[in-house]
């Protein structure tokens, strides 16, 4: 039996970032991961580092996280491939433009000024290759993208060097909660104890909660991506189009990474994803329609990553309603990558009983009507 102050389930970015912060605060932390190394959402996502278009509740955390991204080298010894070429969200028609205008007013009324309303001429300057309809759009100039696998590795390495004890191939299969805290068992025979338990298991968040008879409204979802062979440089910022399933960026090496929340088939019990080529066909058409330069681009690879999506597309962050000492930090609903450096900091305070730098109340599981 091994004992620590805190056990974290899931060594994705959320778990690893939380572990890192707790270790820096002097806590003894076990980080349990079912894979040989974490290979799910955090390692295979689109890498978008975006404040633009965030849910209002998420903006304060997203803005604080954004201040951390350019400082990654100091934090985790790697720049994580972060490039600050901006993010652009284009309004294809008057209605979208009206919507975005209102949005920016709303964001500004909260005291945030990172979203900038721009006209069609400015969009042309920012995204010359864009040939779709355009009435203007919004821009966050210092947003950008980073390399997920590199980021995850850097966080993980740093966490371990700060004393986090990481256990790979350790799938948590049962949890009991007694007077002295939690006792956690893994499929490979490991037995761990702690006073505090944090559920950072992403799309599996509901499964972990279920081990302690709690329901979390998290739906595991397979999100599809595709990447092309290198193209001559034609695009700097990350581009999305309002009302269209398109997320589009060109990496430093020239490859183009295409997302847009197209869903793949998912067999969760086998953790097997099968791409839905009907969706990929739509994705390819959408890209072509807006970026004709892409017609001849050669598709090298498509893949899908498993992400936990909640009923209201906001993450669940906070102490369990049912089991004191258990914290859920999961269900980041396809936008947890950018937030992760800040989430680790906030959750570390939360579980130590300190007041987090930013409020987390909006993310409490109590917001859902479902009976516990």
């Amino acid at each position, binding site marked *: 039996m091994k004992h620590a102050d805190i056990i974290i389930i899931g060594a994705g970015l959320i778990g690893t970032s939380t572990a890192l912060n707790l270790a820096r605060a002097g806590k003894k932390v076990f980080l349990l991961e079912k894979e*040989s190394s974490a290979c799910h959402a955090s390692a295979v996502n689109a890498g978008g580092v975006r404040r633009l278009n965030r849910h209002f509740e998420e903006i304060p955390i997203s803005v604080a996280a954004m201040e951390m991204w350019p400082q990654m080298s100091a934090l985790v010894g790697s720049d994580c491939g972060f490039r600050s070429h901006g993010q652009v969200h284009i309004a294809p028609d008057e209605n979208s433009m009206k919507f975005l205008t209102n949005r920016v007013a709303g964001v500004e009324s909260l005291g945030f000024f990172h979203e900038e309303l721009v006209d069609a001429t400015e969009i042309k300057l920012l995204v010359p290759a864009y040939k779709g309809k355009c009435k203007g759009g919004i821009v966050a100039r210092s947003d950008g993208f980073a390399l997920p696998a590199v980021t995850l590795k850097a966080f993980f390495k740093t966490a371990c060097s700060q004393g986090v004890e990481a256990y790979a191939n350790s799938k948590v299969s049962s949890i009991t909660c007694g007077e002295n805290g939690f006792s956690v068992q893994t499929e490979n025979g490991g037995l761990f104890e702690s006073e505090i338990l944090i559920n950072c298991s992403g799309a599996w968040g509901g499964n972990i909660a279920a081990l302690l008879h709690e329901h979390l409204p998290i739906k595991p979802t397979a999100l599809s991506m595709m990447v092309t062979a290198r193209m001559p440089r034609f695009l700097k910022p990350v581009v999305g189009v309002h009302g269209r399933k398109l997320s589009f960026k060109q990496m430093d090496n020239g490859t183009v990474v295409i997302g847009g929340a197209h869903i793949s088939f998912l067999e969760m019990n086998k953790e097997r994803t099968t791409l839905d080529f009907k969706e990929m066909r739509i994705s390819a058409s959408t890209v072509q329609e807006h970026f004709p330069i892409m017609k001849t681009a050669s598709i090298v690879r498509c893949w899908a990553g498993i992400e936990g999506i909640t009923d209201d597309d906001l993450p669940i962050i906070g102490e369990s309603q049912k089991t004191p000492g258990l914290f859920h930090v999961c269900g980041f609903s396809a936008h947890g990558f950018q937030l992760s450096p800040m989430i680790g900091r906030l959750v570390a305070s939360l579980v130590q009983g300190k007041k987090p730098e930013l409020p987390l109340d909006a993310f409490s599981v109590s917001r859902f009507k479902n009976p516990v």
Partner: protein
Amino acid sequence: MSELRDIIVVGAGPAGLSAALTASGLGLDVLVLDEQPALGGQLYRNIEKANEQTLKILGSDYGRGRHLIEKFRNSNAEHLAGATVWNIEANGNVYYSKAGQSSEIRGKHVILAIGAAERSVPFPGWTLPGVMGAGAVDSNFKSSGTIPEGPVVFAGSGPLFLSTLGHMTSLGVEIGAVLDTTPQGNLLAALPFLPRAMKRLDYFLKGAGMLLNLRRLGIKYAKGINGYEAHGRDRVEKVSYSSKNGVQHVEAGVFLVHEGLVPRCDFTQLLGLKHCWDAAQRYWYPQINHVGATEIDTIYVVGDGAFVHGGMPAITKGSLAAVDIAGKLNALPLDSKTVTLAKLEKKLSSELDFRPFVDVLFRPRSNLFKMSDQTLVCRCEEVTAGEIRRAINEGCLDSNETKAITRCGMGRCQGRMCGSALNEIIIDELNRQPLDTQPLRMRPPVRNISLAELSQLSLFKNRVR
């Protein structure tokens, strides 16, 4: 074309043709897809158009293919030439590209008969123009009659190495040197298997004749070579090679390398099937049963893509799978299925009698993948062995993670060229058992297609899952 077929065969080589023939002979509706313009696969490539001289040079092993293809032409099986398969799903959906148009089609069963590929082994200079796979040059000769301009230096080992060498000498290609990398202890280790192999005496006579011919022609032949490098500015000009006698050089206009064949596991890996590791041949092969069935009921693997056994066994393996499927689809009563399978299995086992000898004789050298830090491993993404080692030393534990960090295997070929080398470096650096490592994960499209083509992909009207 009908959307649902009884069997889709991928690959029109000996195994695929035989599977298709057998299945259509039993009344099944069969479609064969192959990316090549002509039937025949690698072994019988372009045989229908081969002239007398080519037939003479390539000999009876090649000529035999004519008979098989004739039978195929007379069968009811359908063939789609120039159809490159780029995705296969567990439920039997097959996606292919032909003349710039991609389509989806479904088989109740899919027989993978995509054969073997030349093992790709990085060495200093391997990306220089003029450095090629020996097998690739043999294929070029079959399909277009082109032959390399000398002086040609050959390096490598294995049956295909020797047969290509034989073809090129018969064609009068100027050969600068032959550098045989077969480990010298192999022959002794293989001797116990010789008696069982004797019934293929013709192979041995052919091999011996070829070596004698080299001597007769005064071609430099060096044994026990344990490494080589290609040198040159814009293309290969010189080859250096090492043996226990030290390092030597030879001039080269073309450098042909062949270090054995390995099963092409693209689709079996894409499908997430279980793979086994052959320690002697140092390669992964898909786990199948005696008739080529995999753990996914729809999917069968036959021929060299299942394990490299050569042409004759491939033909038998193809028939085995076809008969088994015919049984499943009620095209064959159980008792005749059992009898037929038993006969075929006996035939296969006798065809494989010479294999243990050949497999031990051509076991790859142990330092095959020992490369310097400067050696380029991934040509698509330009990643060196040193960069891979650094990532491993900084904590990467398996090939897929190392790929994500270094980009080795992330390029156009999805690791077909560098995957083995990457895995071998991991085995070495982390002192792993090969079985504890993972081959690189494959993702569709397994062959690149353009975005425009994907946007025009023709799908079933009634898609079910």
